[in-house]
């Protein structure tokens, strides 16, 4: 799924951008068509096009973009089966645990597979992701998805790791462990069998509630994990906007003008609007701020200041991230 290809081929997964939070995953198949609100888009017209192409519909009204899948885009588009791990958390976890090309990572539970995709992308063909999911239906869905997405470096296992551990037929030797479970302390006991013995192993436990964190700290201590540190990620997204700059002197002038007209007995509101040659409403009197009509941000004739704005809602908590590591005591060699 994660490749460096430039051109779309038959069978490829493409994320179709229909709108900012509207990404639709499709598998390109000769003969098929994509229906959207903008019209019909035949797959055949996509084959051979570069990823990133803007395509207009057959009616030439509206358009879409054909995007190359990445885990970050996938996170926006995937069907949520559980609460997913978003990019601010996953990117920090990957960076902090030093997950790189060739790394071997354990992930439990798989959940909606959002983070699995991010791990798979980062460890690359030389790395391995061992993912475990206990819930049968979710396991089946993930299995199907990982196969169709060709996550060849990912081994998915249907397992209740808290009771039955992580061991599988192949060697695991994980260098990094990510636990997103209600009771991670139960799974921690089974880790010794599957972690690498020739280097420091990193772990991250992802828990929403403080009480879970407290229990997990205890268990980590108990099982010889060190450098235990609780963290949380607070992320924001900003958007560039423009704010009209309204000057005091203009406000004073406008008030002066209003008072003058009041004295002259004009009641501005009662008169019908003046219109210019185009039929646009003309300002009556001194109107430096475009009072009474809709102004486009950045519109000429007004003064603007660049500002930044967050969305109306902030994600103020996803989960606590509890990190630790385990270092095998190897012999010193001179």
């Amino acid at each position, binding site marked *: 799924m994660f490749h460096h290809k430039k051109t779309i081929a038959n069978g490829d997964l493409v994320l179709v951008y229909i709108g900012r939070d509207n990404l639709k995953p499709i598998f390109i198949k000769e003969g098929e068509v994509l229906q959207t609100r903008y019209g019909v888009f035949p797959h055949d017209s996509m084959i051979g096009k570069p990823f990133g192409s803007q395509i207009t519909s057959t009616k030439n009204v*509206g358009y879409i973009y054909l995007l190359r899948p990445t885990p970050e885009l996938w996170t926006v588009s995937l069907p949520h089966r559980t609460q997913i791990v978003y990019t601010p958390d996953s990117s920090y976890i990957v960076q902090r645990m030093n997950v790189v090309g060739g790394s071997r990572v354990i992930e439990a539970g798989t959940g909606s597979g959002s983070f699995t995709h991010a791990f798979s992308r980062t460890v690359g063909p030389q790395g391995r992701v061992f993912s475990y999911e206990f819930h049968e239906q979710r396991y089946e869905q993930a299995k199907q998805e990982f196969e169709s997405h060709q996550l060849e470096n990912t081994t998915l296992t249907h397992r209740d790791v808290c009771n039955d551990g992580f061991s599988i037929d192949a060697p695991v030797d994980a260098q990094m462990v990510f636990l997103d479970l209600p009771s991670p302390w139960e799974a921690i006991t089974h880790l010794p069998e599957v972690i690498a013995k020739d280097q420091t192993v990193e772990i991250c436990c992802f828990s929403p509630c403080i009480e879970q964190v407290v229990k997990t700290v205890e268990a980590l201590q108990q099982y010889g994990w060190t450098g235990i540190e609780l963290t949380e990620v607070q992320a924001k997204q900003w958007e560039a906007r423009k704010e009209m700059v309204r000057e005091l002197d203009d406000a004073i002038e406008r008030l002066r003008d209003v008072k003058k007209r009041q004295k002259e007995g004009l009641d501005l509101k009662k008169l019908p609007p003046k219109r210019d040659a185009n039929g646009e409403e003309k300002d009556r009197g001194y109107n430096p701020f475009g009072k009474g009509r809709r102004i486009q941000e950045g519109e000429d004739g007004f003064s603007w200041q660049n500002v930044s704005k967050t969305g109306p809602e902030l994600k103020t908590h996803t989960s606590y991230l509890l990190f630790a590591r385990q270092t095998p005591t190897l012999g010193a060699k001179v």
Partner: protein
Amino acid sequence: MQQTRQSKLIAPNDHGLVTMPSGSMRIVQLRPGGVINLGKFGHFLVDQTFGYAYGQAFEIIEEKKVVPVKDLSTEFEESREATPGPVVPDFKSSANNKDLVDLGQKIQGLTAQDIEKMKKEGEGNAVARQIIEKMIQSHEAFDKKTLFSQEKYLTRKQKKFTRRFQIDYLSSSALVKYYYQEKDPQRVLDLSEETLGLMMSHANIMPGGSYLVLDETGGLLVYAILERMQGQGSVVWLHENDQPNTWILKQSGYSETQLDEMIRPISFLEFFEPESHTGPVFKFTEQEVAEMSQSRKQSYLRRLAKADKLQQTVDMVTRNELDALVSMSTLNPSTLIPRVLERLAGSRPVVAYHQYKEMLIELDHILQKDKRVIMTSIAETKVRRFQTVPGKMHPLMTSRAGGGYVFVGLRVLPAEGVQAVGRGKKRKTEET
């Protein structure tokens, strides 16, 4: 290409990150036969650490002699040993007694004679406990008269005298933390570990990619990308000088050859005006080459190789094949980014870092209107760390400020003559 960095075991000539229990860090080169000086904590012989896993904690038990220990911190050992009464330090060594006398002298309400008297009136821990209790009662610096803060006070005292340290692999995280938290955030343009991670993910860095990079940190960003790629792929390093500044990369442990294989430097002139500033090097005939001195020949071959490589880089660039733009530059993003993103393939991330959010706002405005870019936003991330001690968990009281901001967008290939039918961001109109 096989894995280029051995990050598992402490090996000769590596650069490593040495961390103390206080949290302070330093970068050292582990030269065989060398001695690392930790100030008042002592010295240690580097040779004694080779072969241990990176992440190993050590304790200096005698002059220069180290033994491996489980944990850098003694916190958990202390809490496991905690007695029900006020925490009592070890009174067996005279060094500790002296500390207490010193401590006592700072306290109103108790003179050194008082303390000596108390100690003489009994032996062993009971007396010590009395001393501590009395000191706690009268000591100004004790926040509250509880076990909780007494432990904190004594833990702080104990931390000062524990001669432990840890050697960590010098990952990009270790490097950025060292500069950002400890040494000088401005060297890394105020970049934090979490912001670096965010950039790596948004830029979709993976083995085998070709990434267009601007890096004014001396190579930290380049290093982070190389680390993720583990030898597979390349970094086209666009820089504004003769050659890029690589002072951080020199600590990376990559050999010159390895760096040469993976990094493709290209200056602004070469990037924007390749016809004028690149081109074949004057070639000597085989005969002339054979007659050259060894050094002159090597110099000539290097020039050829360099020109050859530069030509390949120019070709990559002009073919618009690059897999992401990742920029840490202090140039005005509004005029820089739109010019360089042209060289990206379609559906490729545009990631631009700046210390100041205000410098990215105009870029966002400009690219919102640029048909070559969609899904723009400015991201900010901050990690809060906690004191993770059972019974006393709370966020750290102070942390480093800053960490930077990241503009993120996606480069696309606009179709010709498309009507923007009710598309783009709806601008909120003002009504005053």
